[in-house]
């Protein structure tokens, strides 16, 4: 299985696979990561503040999304939408579904992080005359985000790999691209190892960015 011909295949396919990682998998994961974080912050805030009805809706959202497979969510969104006359771009649908799905997980992370900010921070904000939203924006969210950051980044790293599910809705990303190439020669195994190595490369870069980011966000003078 591992001979000169395989080596040649690996070399020639490397750029082809890589380009789909850079063009599809990574952008998909990154955009969805940003959007999911926005969703997570909103959903976490609603629960933190205990907004009556909206809170229940958010719990329902988290329950449904965490309880069902991402693949099915993707298919429901992509093939279900046309039933309502909406013909969306598959990449767009993938971005939205990944954002919504990851948003549910990250919302729980953010909520826990917000609850870990001491209540005194909120009270002190009130006592200098700030409004609830001002306190959220300047005090609670920055501190919660710092706490949640490593977990959120972990989720991003997972998501880069999960993008392969998008093949069910016509999005050809890095993993499907690998299958295409492997399908030409039936030489799946070496190519799968190759794509794993490329994922590893991306994840190493992301881990590095995470470390930098953690330092950038600062730990507010706390010695570690």
């Amino acid at each position: 299985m591992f001979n000169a011909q395989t080596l040649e295949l690996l070399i020639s396919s490397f750029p082809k696979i890589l380009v789909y990682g850079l063009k599809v998998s990574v952008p998909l994961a990154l955009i969805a990561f940003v959007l999911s974080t926005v969703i997570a912050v909103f959903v976490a805030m609603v629960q933190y503040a205990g907004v009556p009805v909206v809170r229940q809706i958010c719990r329902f959202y988290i329950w449904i999304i965490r309880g069902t497979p991402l693949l099915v969510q993707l298919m429901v969104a992509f093939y279900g939408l046309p039933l309502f006359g909406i013909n969306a771009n598959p990449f767009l649908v993938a971005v939205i579904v990944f954002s919504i799905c990851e948003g549910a997980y990250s919302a729980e992370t953010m909520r826990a992080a917000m609850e870990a900010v001491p209540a005194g921070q909120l009270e002190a904000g009130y006592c200098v005359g700030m409004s609830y939203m001002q306190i959220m924006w300047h005090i609670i969210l920055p501190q919660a985000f710092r706490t949640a950051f490593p977990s959120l980044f972990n989720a991003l790293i997972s998501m880069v790999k999960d993008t392969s599910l998008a093949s069910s809705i016509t999005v050809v990303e890095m993993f499907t691209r690998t299958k295409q190439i492997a399908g030409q020669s039936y030489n799946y195994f070496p190519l799968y190892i190759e794509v794993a190595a490329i994922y590893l490369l991306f994840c190493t870069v992301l881990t590095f960015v995470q470390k930098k980011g953690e330092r950038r966000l600062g730990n507010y003078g706390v010695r570690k």
Partner: protein
Amino acid sequence: GCGAKKSDDHLARIKEAGKITIATEGVWAPFTYHDPDTDELVGFDVEVAAAIAEKLGVTPEFKEVAFDGGLTGVSTGTFDMMANGVDVTDERSETFDFTEAYAYDHAVVVTLASNTDIASFDDLKGHTTANSAGSTYEAMGIEYGAAVSNVDTLGETMTLVLNGTVDATINANTSAQDYFNTTGTTELKVAAVDPEVTKYAVPLAKGSDNDSLREAINQAIADLRAEGKLAEISNKYFGADITAE
């Protein structure tokens, strides 16, 4: 466009749009795959579908998608049709309306060349096979009393046979031959051929909306067959004509 009232007839809508969307996997040689040299989507099904589109007077637009997604998309109208060596059974005919067959195939049993235990489908009883979940071949394996394992792709199935993890695999004769040709392996052989024929056809969503489209595709297939075009494509990919019964 949005807002404009859409025609109730699928064929009319396709003609209006000037294109037909065709779902296909793109990872299954020689039916639908990427040419190793040009990287273009090619294959028997791809060329047949393109020829059908030409007959309909529209441009083919291929959508590469996983098998389950492709069929789902056909049933919901996301794709107009699928060209992926979809084989017809009675049960499937209740979910989709199939066109006439454009190719025929036979199921074969593939084993190690050294295997002497299995010489017919009946010999599968008590042996292990591997196939992809939900495939016709998986059902056959169960029917003949084999213990069926599931994997995703043909390459994986063959690997399992080569490893000795399973005793045999059932697959389309066409696929098996292509695998032998592409990999040049001599360690495997066709141990048995099923006399029953497998029909490859185009699945369309159920409903009278599709009547005229099905008619048009049937006509296109008949014309292509009469013109010798189907045979030409078949010879190009299989080295044999599988388009006549």
